[in-house]
């Protein structure tokens, strides 16, 4: 545990430094994830890392750096941009890709964006369907990716708890929860027919707490939106809605300055903030210890219908 500033690796190998790593739970999770990243990079023709800018993506990216060090990350990053991501996320994304020297691809469902798709004009379900799921499937198809890493964790949501580490998708990119390949030990079946693909979740066994502790332990940069700050918010009872897109405001509604932060990052119209004083990583961890709601409770899209995440996943969503 150190509080030293971010260590920048030049990519050079420094010989002679010798130490022993303790195998605590974070090291065990790290070792498992690195093994997965290396397997995928070696067994698939054209893998890609879905980089969504959030804390989980930040951890996944660091694990990729570790997996292939001192060689560069052998696959590109792809961001599915709905057009509703926070401006800070986009700036961070571009900075981060440059920082790690990775190729960054951005994919947007331009026709849907041009048609004015948004969660209020449509409902959240159809909005996600077009701007996220459709965009993702199109992007994967366009580049011919046969494996895509995602930062999803099994502890996030009930249907994700059943997801394999290698999650098989048929030719239409869809998930069949009743017909998943058995996954034993650390032996992953990477075989697919043309058109089929595998979504890979190297952080499957990490919890939200593990992710934050690892970010702390490894000094991994994350987007500023996670840290508490005075921010303009539409205050609707318990709900704080960030002022980012004009169309979310109710007629006559005025934003207020609230010391707040985001617990998970999504599209601004559908991501509520929480009142918080946590302006550091230990502060966030301390706050988590006192939390009584799960991290996705503020994500509107998970609650739009019973079993909604499972339905989205069947259709091809991460």
């Amino acid at each position: 545990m150190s509080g030293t500033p971010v260590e920048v690796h030049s990519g050079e190998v420094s010989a002679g430094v010798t130490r022993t790593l303790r195998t605590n739970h974070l090291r065990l999770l790290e070792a498992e994830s690195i093994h997965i990243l290396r397997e995928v990079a070696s067994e698939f023709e054209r893998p890609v890392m879905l980089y969504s800018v959030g804390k989980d993506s930040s951890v996944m990216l660091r694990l990729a750096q570790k997996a292939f060090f001192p060689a560069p990350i052998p696959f590109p990053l792809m961001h599915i941009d709905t057009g509703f991501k926070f401006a800070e996320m986009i700036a961070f994304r571009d900075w981060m890709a440059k920082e790690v020297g990775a190729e960054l691809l951005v994919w947007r469902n331009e026709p849907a964006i041009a048609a004015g798709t948004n969660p209020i004009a449509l409902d959240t379900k159809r909005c996600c369907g077009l701007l996220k799921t459709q965009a993702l499937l199109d992007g994967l198809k366009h580049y011919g990716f046969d494996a895509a890493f995602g930062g999803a964790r099994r502890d996030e949501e009930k249907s994700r708890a059943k997801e394999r580490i290698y999650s098989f998708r048929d030719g239409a990119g869809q998930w069949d929860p009743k017909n998943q390949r058995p996954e034993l030990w650390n032996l992953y079946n990477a075989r697919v027919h043309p058109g089929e693909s595998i979504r890979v979740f190297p952080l499957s066994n990490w919890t939200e707490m593990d992710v934050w502790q690892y970010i702390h332990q490894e000094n991994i940069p994350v987007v500023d939106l996670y840290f508490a700050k005075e921010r303009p918010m539409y205050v609707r009872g318990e709900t704080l809605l960030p002022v980012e897109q004009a169309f979310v405001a109710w007629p006559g509604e005025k934003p207020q300055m609230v010391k707040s932060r985001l617990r998970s990052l999504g599209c601004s119209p559908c991501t509520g903030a929480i009142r918080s004083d946590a302006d550091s990583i230990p502060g966030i961890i301390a706050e988590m210890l006192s939390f009584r709601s799960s991290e996705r409770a503020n994500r509107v899209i998970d609650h739009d219908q019973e079993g909604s995440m499972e339905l989205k996943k069947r259709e091809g969503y991460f």
Partner: protein
Amino acid sequence: MSEIAAVQETTFSIQGFLAEEGRKDLLRFSTAGSVDDGKSTLIGRLLYDTQSVYEDQVKSIEGKGTTLPGQIDFALLTDGLRAEREQGITIDVAYRYFATDKRKFIIADTPGHEQYTRNMATGASTADATVVLIDASKGVLIQSRRHAFIASLLRVRHVLVAVNKMDLIGYDEAKFRAIESDFRALLSQIAADTGSPVTPHFIPVSALLGDNIVHRSSAMSWYSGPSLLELLESVPAAVNSEKEPFRFPVQRVLRPDSTFRGFAGQIASGTVRPGDTIVALPSGRSAQVDRIVTYDGDLAEAQAPLSVTLVLKTEVDISRGDLIASAENAGTIAGGCKAHLVWMDQQPLQLHRRYLLKHTSQTVPAYVTAVDYRTEIGTLEHKRAHTLEINGIGVVSIQLPRPIVLDKYSENRATGAFILIDPATNSTVAAGMVREVAGRDSLVGTSSAAASGPVTGEERLRRWGHQGGELQLAGSVELIDMVERALFAMGAVTVRVPALADAVRISQLAAAGLLALVVAPSNEGFLKARVGDAEIVVEAEDATAVTAVLELLEENGVLASHKEEGSEYSI
């Protein structure tokens, strides 16, 4: 960009908390139990009582489920899929996470029905411990036997036997002790069969009421042992593999430039230090370890299961799939093995068919040449079998045309395990655990390059598993079809000939190594099967009818005979 600089600011003793967290280890355990045993209730209860579920999650299930009004149906916290919620059963492996002050836990929550045996094996494959549930009001049922068998087979060392629903039997100690002694007897039988002993712990519990789950219960003063959670917090995690021989399957060769060549992998067992002499297999070349490279700097020592990159002092040709091992104990290069298989696919095992075997970081072709026996899990009987069907477990002989380094599963859980993949469907069809390793010498005729001249009857026998011959089948059409299907599944090459065909033609087929089925179908409910002078009659209703016909073929030397343990590796 980040506020890392703020790390030093502490508003409460968060640094102390983080230091504590840094000392926590990780225990993976699986659960197994039939639906009615209340397994999901138990998991839900563990999560709820350790404050590992959030208010919104509890809120989302309140007033739902099948419990009495006002009681929370804890099972709903764990049964994730819609189908499961609708049918009230658990159909897949679900992973759950929770932590206490002492440890982090990963639960692989698996279903109990027989048709999900494979899911149970999946959950057990990575578990250090398993919780087997027994319904105190029913005693040791088949499901509990199955779970115990799988735990032992997959080498899960600690079996925590939670005798549940104690409240329904008035917390009766005598009944608990009777279940304990029944189950201990069963476990020693199982250990004798799988060769892998387990350490059992017995706890009387009520998942519904929370007795002895997290907190010790006052309802059973006769029980002075730990609660289930206390046990989970104290059983040793992964067996210390530091003393095991070093095994490092190479996943990838890292060559960022001409000055660096490193071998990336995850240590499967043992420890490595710079200066150690290693041997690369299968080439057999040895070298010294120069450096253990990680992103965070070089290491003076690394042990399983860390993921590292090794740099050697001398240039050795090593690629993905090779194994770097300690020079003193390098393992056996095997051209085959005997292994326990858990069959996982709808399509049954086909003998002599080409499967792909994935072992550590390599995938090679593999042929199952014989099923030595199938284990009836309920009774632990060894049944004669020619195939394995979904959820079937048995010992088979496997040939590997391209030899690989194998260890026994009982000695190394990482290098003794494999999966079989069907190259046509790409499905994962079986999980395998090596029981015996066959050296290269014990291989017969696997090298096609070495063969020349006309194909001999001996070679056909090895490939197809039978001699050329004639099997007369008269009677039930259904049974004739079933016999032909069974032979086909075994890889036999059969030809159907009408009973009136001339004898010369039949003997020509047999001489060519084919198995001629001389059929006279009728609407009878029985089947007469004849090989040479030997004839049997089987009834259509008899489930073992087909097996009886296959045995007739074996006894008369047409089918290669079934070998028991200790026999050769190839037929």
